[in-house]
């Protein structure tokens, strides 16, 4: 399968197989007006298989969301057909309004205006806990 390179925009590379769809949905990429390619199970020398997302516009992306879903993603910023900036993401310290606390006893279950904020408490194991009740994110 051949997909032409993009001239301007962003390429999310080295996405773990299966995470591409989640990133696509969470970032609501289907709502963009530009061309977006979601490639699943592409061949990778490093990973065996990987997902890739190509966005043919230089849009603002919430990198914390991507880093939370998949801390191994590489973000390539493309301008005039060349990669002008490359970022290797890490799990962010805080994740805001991406996941909701599932603890029914958490204050966020009743106070609707509160932001759902999760804090990284164990980088090695990728554990996030609710800022309010400290329940583990599921």
């Amino acid at each position: 399968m051949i997909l032409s390179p993009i001239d301007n925009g962003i390429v999310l590379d080295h996405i773990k197989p299966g995470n591409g769809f989640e990133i696509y949905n969470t970032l609501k990429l289907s709502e963009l007006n530009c061309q977006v390619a979601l490639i699943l199970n592409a061949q990778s020398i490093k990973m065996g298989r990987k997902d890739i997302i190509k966005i043919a516009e230089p849009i603002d992306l919430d990198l914390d969301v991507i880093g939370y879903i998949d801390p191994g993603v590489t973000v390539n910023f493309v301008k005039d057909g060349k990669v002008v900036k490359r970022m290797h993401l890490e799990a962010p310290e805080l994740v805001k309004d991406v996941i909701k606390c599932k603890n029914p006893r958490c204050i966020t279950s009743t106070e609707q205006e509160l932001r759902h904020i999760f804090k990284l408490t164990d980088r090695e194991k990728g554990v996030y806990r609710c800022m309010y009740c400290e329940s583990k994110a599921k």
Partner: protein
Amino acid sequence: MRSLIDILELTTDEINELLDVANDIIDNPSKYSEKCHGKKLATLFFEPSTRTRLSFEAAMYELGGNVLGFSEAQSSSSAKGESVSDTIRTVSCYADIIAMRHPKEGAPYVATMKSRVPIINAGDGGHNHPTQTLTDLLTIKREKGRLNGFTIGFCGDLKFGRTVHSLISALSRYENIKMVLISPDELKVPEYVKEEILDKKGIEYREVTTLDEVMGELDILYMTRVQKERFFNEADYLRLKDTYILTPEKLNSAKSDLAILHPLPRVNEISVAVDDDPRAKYFDQVLNGKYVRMALIMKLLEVR
């Protein structure tokens, strides 16, 4: 401005300082009788409590201050659907410091984001109860003269008991403490407490299912209530409930200087016959709670 939501917000030096002040209050109460003159404590109890609310109120009165507040959500605008944020914004216009208990976990943390005055977490669901932990630490310090070098047994409901988790995490910062976790399999300490506190801090601990097998080793026995509603079936509850009732007979093999603690209320997990045993310290613990809350109120109000 400082609040207290989680015991771990205090350094061990600050905890030691609070316990020293509490001990000084016990020895010289008159020295402190006007320390908070003209100050007001609001006690906002969105769910019932006997000891915690009354000890906060007694603490403020003994410091020469005044108290306002409510003892149940039904007697506040919370019953009309007012948010915690709005209640706190309002009350912090009237009081100099707020002690709050709320059934929802994290509610006191939300309060700190909106308050003009210090917030003390007086219990939020099954989450934190830092002033109970300060009470426990003061009792241990007074009974043992130190906060290190002892074996403590936690007995009963170690899964849902917030006081147990807080005390384990507070004690994990002191040296040479061994912990024995005594509970049925259904009520064992949660994995995250073991992984994120005990294992990370290298605390020596072991889990057992009966009190008898470890009684002789303990310097401190921290009892908690085994609650029937926590069991999935009644047969398991009936099988286990008596195992964790402390009786004078079970204390035969205990050390002569054992200190028996309980956060209270108790139902039947400590037989009333144990109350007369000099090793029973749970009512001393209640009294200590008032003094350590006096020390905490003074610290957060920056009164010297």
